[in-house]
């Protein structure tokens, strides 16, 4: 591995962590291309390795948010534990529904959420401010 690749991994890893902490996602969206680009992993290897890194990063992030009073652990674990049910549903749906229809449906759902969240953001706080 060359120095440039190592620097690339450091930068993209760090960026993935910051995004993860800021908005509560795992960071795989940056880990996967980083591993493909700088370590020449295959797509499958990169996804597998990314999941491994996500476990560590999300655990640290959740722990820190717990310290800030922003973690409902039981809720989070319930969501996580039931995700395999969804994976099974997703595999069935993927085989029954045309891909283009799925893409358009999911994009529509995302745009609806985006609209609702943008309105919420513009309204500002509507509850008592919590001074941290």
């Amino acid at each position, binding site marked *: 591995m060359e120095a440039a690749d190592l620097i690339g991994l450091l930068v993209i*890893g760090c*960026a*993935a*962590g*910051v*995004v*993860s*902490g*800021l*908005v*509560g*996602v*795992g960071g795989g*969206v940056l880990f996967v291309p980083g591993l493909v680009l700088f*370590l020449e992993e295959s797509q*499958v*290897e990169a996804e*597998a*390795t*990314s*999941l*491994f*890194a*996500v476990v560590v*990063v*999300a*655990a*640290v*992030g*959740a722990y*820190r*948010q*717990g310290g800030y009073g922003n*973690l409902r652990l039981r*809720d*989070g*674990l*319930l*969501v*996580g*534990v*039931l*995700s395999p049910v969804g994976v099974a*549903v*997703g*595999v069935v*749906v993927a085989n029954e529904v045309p891909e283009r229809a*799925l*893409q358009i449906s999911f*994009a529509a759902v995302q*745009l609806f*959420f*985006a*609209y*609702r*969240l943008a309105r*919420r*953001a513009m309204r500002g*706080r509507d509850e008592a401010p919590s001074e*941290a």
Partner: protein
Amino acid sequence: MSSRHLRLAAIGTAAGAFSALFGVGGGTVIVPLLILWLAYEDREATGTSLAAIVVIAALGAGAHALYGNVDPLAGLLIGAPAVGGVLAGTALQQRLPERFVSAAFAVLLVASAAVLMLS
């Protein structure tokens, strides 16, 4: 089971289904649903989402490990700087306006929808 628990169960199922269908991480589904459907505050939604993601990613990584696809050294190489990043990200989030997460997600979801439509 209360309706609250049913909603959480539905969110877990949706997160799993969307990640299987579109390869998106669960977080892009979990955070908006916790905010819009369960009236979570923004930061709470992100912290709770990360806890869910630990479980989801651990199950996924475990399954991949059975096939020998996980490269732990590479994972640490990219994960170690990410741990630094997540410490900085969570600390920074506490100093940003409460509704920053909603605003950021509005942008992120529009971008993601555009990518889906154009793919």
